[in-house]
Structures are given as structure tokens and as C-alpha cells.
């Protein structure tokens, strides 16, 4: 019988398929956008802080040079602008945008002699984060333990949607609730002088942090191999002993990561603290006094500053610190979560 030998003819030439080629290149290039923007965020948030550090003699930045080459017409106006900027930074420099000023304990950006002390803002952010974690961590972790170890079905099926709803609350809604209801409630209980203070802000913030800590802790707890808990139960340990002595220690790295991510969220959150903390840049340890955080400072003041002014640059500096801080926290948290995953793989 005659054998059709068409195969070798058609397959022996590698074809160039244009749509295939374009699709792959386009998709790969698009995927690159995420990475490009991370780099751009780094560059552009930091770039706007640079004039602070080169204050005495602000150099003409690269893009301005580039512009002179590209668009002949606007060189003048741009050069003018650059000169203006230089002037401004110089003025500011004379007023002392020094490291000492930034390290100072006063935040008074709008005054005859502006003071850009970041200390009260950093302390404010830390204070608020601490308070929110103080409430959120125990609630979220124990609730996660409850879900994983004890909860009857109906309780799980109530709690999980509740968490999803809580996670879905826009932060401005939580901020509004804190401002209108929570603040009065707290004031009445403690008989406080100020309605809005660090305590109220931290408490409200914990509502935003609970879903994060809960979700990741629950994840960590349910990732523990069943064999481990079953072994404990088989040895005669009760459910709660197993929960406290086996489950909780085994899930510790994951829970730790959960707390770190919670801190990151609290530290970076803007709207809730902007609305509920009173926004006074006081350097104080008292949780019942108003406080101003780094994020709230940016949120409240950025819309009012003049672009290119020292105040503007300092706000970007605050943003850079926020970015670096949360970035570091996330990186550390990821290491812990990975370790847990490794353990999980080894365990199974």
C-alpha cells in the first residue's frame, strides 16, 4: 500500500508565526510593567526628596538637561523654573533644612521659621501602629485559633464572611465611624479631654488590621500537617492542649509574619488615622492625646503645598520612609511565610 509521506514535508520547516511572536512579546512586555512601576515608584518618590539633601547647591537634575536637548522652545521657561526652584531651596536651606532640623521634635512646616522635625510623626505612626496591633493581634490570632481548632461549622460560616466584610470596609468608612461614633464612646468611658486621640485612631485602625492578621494566621494554622495534631490527640492530649501546645507553636512563624504585615498595614494606613487621631504633632507617650502620623501628614498637607518647595520635598521624604519601612516589613514577613511553607512541604 502506498504510504502518504506528507508529514516530513510539512514539519521539517520551522514556521514563523507572526501572531504567536507578537502575542508572546506583547504579553511579556506587559508583564514587565509591574516591575517597571516598582522601579519608577522607587525612583520618583525618592527623586522628589533629593533637593533636601543637595540643598546648599541644588544641581540641575538630569531630566531638565534632557529636556533642553529635546524641546528647544521651552528651555527658557524650564530654566526659569529650575532657577526658581534653586532659589527656593536656597532660601529653605538658609532657614536650615538640615539633618538637625529633620531630627528635631517640632513639626511646624508653615511658620516663619519652618520646622521639619520628623520625630513626632515617626513616634506618632509607631504609637498608632502599636495600639492597633495591641488590639488586633490577640483578637485576630485567637479568633483564627478558634476557627481552626474549636469552632463548630456554623461559627466558622459566620466568622469567615464577617472577616470578608470587615476586609471590604473602605478605610474611609472605618475612619468615619471612628470619628463620629467611636471617639464619643471612648471619650465618655475614659472621660477624656480630647475626642480624637491616638487611642481612638489605633482602635479604629485595628478594624482594618484584624482581617490581615486573621487571614494569614488562619492560613498558617490550617497549614499544619494533620498528622501532627492527630499525634497529639492520640497521645491523650485534649483539644485545647493540642491547640495551645502543638498548633500555636507550629504556626508561630506564620503568625509572626501575620503580625508584621499587620504592622505594615497600620503604619501605612492614611484615611483612618487622618480622620480619627486629631492630627496634632505632639511628642508624647500618652495614648489619650492627639497624634499625627506620617501618612496623615502627607494626606493632609500635600494638597496645600507648593510643588518643589522644601515642605513638598520633606513630605516626599516622609513617603520614602513609609515606603522603605513597609517594604522591609513585607520582605521579612515573606521570609517567615516561605519558611513555613518549606516546613509544610517537609512535613507532608
Amino acid at each position, binding site marked *: 500500500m502506498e504510504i502518504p509521506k506528507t508529514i516530513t514535508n510539512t514539519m*521539517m520547516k520551522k514556521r514563523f508565526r507572526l501572531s504567536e511572536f507578537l502575542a508572546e512579546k506583547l504579553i511579556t512586555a506587559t508583564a514587565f510593567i509591574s516591575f517597571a512601576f516598582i522601579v519608577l515608584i522607587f525612583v520618583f518618590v525618592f527623586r522628589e526628596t533629593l533637593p533636601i539633601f543637595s540643598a546648599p547647591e541644588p544641581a540641575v537634575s538630569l531630566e531638565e538637561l534632557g529636556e533642553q536637548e529635546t524641546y528647544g522652545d521651552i528651555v527658557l521657561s524650564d530654566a526659569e523654573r529650575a532657577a526658581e526652584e534653586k532659589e527656593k531651596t536656597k532660601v529653605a536651606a538658609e532657614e536650615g533644612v538640615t539633618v538637625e532640623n529633620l531630627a528635631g521634635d517640632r513639626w511646624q512646616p508653615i511658620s516663619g521659621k519652618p520646622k521639619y522635625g520628623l520625630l513626632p510623626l515617626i513616634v506618632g505612626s509607631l504609637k498608632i501602629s502599636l495600639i492597633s496591633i495591641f488590639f488586633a493581634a490577640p483578637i485576630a490570632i485567637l479568633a483564627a485559633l478558634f476557627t481552626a481548632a474549636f469552632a463548630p461549622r456554623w461559627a466558622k460560616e459566620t466568622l469567615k464572611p464577617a472577616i470578608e466584610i470587615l476586609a471590604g470596609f473602605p478605610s474611609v468608612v472605618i475612619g468615619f465611624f471612628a470619628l463620629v461614633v467611636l471617639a464619643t464612646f471612648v471619650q465618655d468611658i475614659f472621660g477624656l479631654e480630647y475626642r480624637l486621640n491616638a487611642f481612638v485612631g489605633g482602635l479604629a485602625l485595628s478594624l482594618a488590621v484584624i482581617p490581615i492578621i486573621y487571614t494569614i494566621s488562619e492560613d498558617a494554622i490550617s497549614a499544619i500537617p494533620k498528622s501532627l495534631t492527630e499525634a497529639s490527640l492520640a497521645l491523650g492530649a485534649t483539644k485545647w492542649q493540642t491547640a495551645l501546645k502543638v498548633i500555636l507553636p507550629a504556626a508561630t512563624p506564620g503568625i509572626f509574619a501575620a503580625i508584621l504585615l499587620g504592622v505594615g498595614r497600620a503604619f501605612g494606613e492614611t484615611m483612618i488615622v487622618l480622620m480619627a487621631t486629631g492630627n496634632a504633632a505632639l511628642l508624647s507617650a500618652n495614648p489619650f492625646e492627639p497624634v499625627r502620623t506620617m501618612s496623615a501628614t502627607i494626606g493632609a498637607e500635600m494638597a496645600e503645598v507648593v510643588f518643589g518647595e522644601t515642605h513638598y520635598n520633606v513630605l516626599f521624604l516622609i513617603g520614602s520612609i513609609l515606603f522603605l519601612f513597609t517594604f522591609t516589613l513585607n520582605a521579612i514577613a515573606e521570609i517567615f511565610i516561605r519558611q513555613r511553607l518549606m516546613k509544610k512541604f517537609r512535613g507532608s
Partner: protein
Amino acid sequence: MYSHSYKTLQPTDVRIKTEHLNIYYGKKQAIKDVSLDMFTHRVTALIGPSGCGKSTYLRSLNRMNDLIENSRTEGNVLLDGVNIYDKQVDVVELRKKVGMIFQKSNPFPKSIFENVAYGPRINGMNDKKKLEDIVERSLKQAALWEEVKDDLAKSGLSLSGGQQQRLCIARALAVDPEILLMDEPASALDPIATAKIEELIYELKNTYTIVIVTHNMQQAARVSDYTGFFYMGELIEFDETKKIFTMPAKKQTEDYITGRFG
């Protein structure tokens, strides 16, 4: 090495020939130095215990193993004398000519018509009349036409297991292949559906060269002309099916076909 007695058989054209084929998954070697010839318009069955490498071997014949990230293939797979692992080979064109039927029937979640029309459509055919012709012809070839001709718009997933598998065969036939690779095509089917598939294979071998992997020895005995026995990644024996099942040359083969294998 396997017994060479088949070489004395009637000289039929060799369609696929593997030479010293080695396949690795990462560091694990799944196929060890397998050399084997498969003949035109014949059914070649590959048998052996699960994990013996028969499926891996089958998937190397249309380069489906390429999809597994850390797999590596050494040696030659010659199709009409041309090495399909050659750099020049266009895998897409290769697969159009070497169709595959999978163990688990896998119709697309589309209508019966669209399932069969999928291949022609990706080849750029949009003529409705021609598509209808191809779908009808393929379904007839797969012995499914009579059962589904009135519900071509129904979802392929609404069919029974055996019908789904025949739909997959029809779908493969619609792209006009010359070789069909079947990876345990009836393993998930009941005896009646299995019988239909086997009947179909018998019909199809007039037009196609078929390689079938099966763990069902009766099936191999019923449908195939040649049988290769794989064990632990090696080809232990290859011969005419009736010889393998009546007078195996190797002790291991005999142990396996008589069911003495662990």
C-alpha cells in the same frame, strides 16, 4: 535488549522508529535506551505495569513531553526517517499529523460541533459548509455520528464517558492526522463502551498508524498487531502480538502476561 525475531517478519514500512531513546524528568530517568520500530497501518500496543514508562514513551512521539518543564530527551525519534527532535522541526505541524487521545476524555466545554471543529478552525477554516462536512465525516469515522447527529449543539460534556472518548477521537481525526497515539483510551470506560472503542481502533488502522498504551492485556491482544512490553523504563520485549501472548521470549514478559507480576 529485546528479542529481534520480528525483523524476520514480512517487511512492512517502518513509520516510527526510536533509537536509543532516553527521557529524564529532572534527575530521574523515565525511559532507558529504548529502540523500537512501529509499522504503517498497524496497531502497536505498549503494555507494562503502571509507572513503567509506557505513557512517557508514547508522549515522546509527538513531543508532548516538551510541555513538562524539567524533562529532557536524548536519542532519536524518526518519523518517516526524519528525527522529530531535530531543531528544524515545527512541533505544531508535527502534532497536527500525530494526533493523540488521552486517558481521561477531555472534551472542551463547548458544543459537540465546536469540539470537532476546533482543529480545522485553528487552521484557519471558517467556511461553515466545509466545517459541517468535516464534523460529519469525523464523527462518522469515530462511530459517533448516529448517536449525536441531532444534538450537535449540545455540550460535549453532556455525553456519556464512552461517547466523550469517541468525541475526542473524532476531534483528533478532524485535523487529518496520519498517526494516532492513544494513551489508555478505554481505561475509564465500561465494557460496552470499551468494546466500541476497540472496534473503532480496528476500523481506523486501515487509514492510520496507531500506537496504543494499555494496561489491559486482553485489549492489547485483541486490537494490536505488535506489542511491546515495558518494565521500569526499559523495553523488555517487542514482537508480533500473537507471539508475545503465546510464546514470550523473556521470563519477565511471561510473568507479566500470566499475571504473576507483583
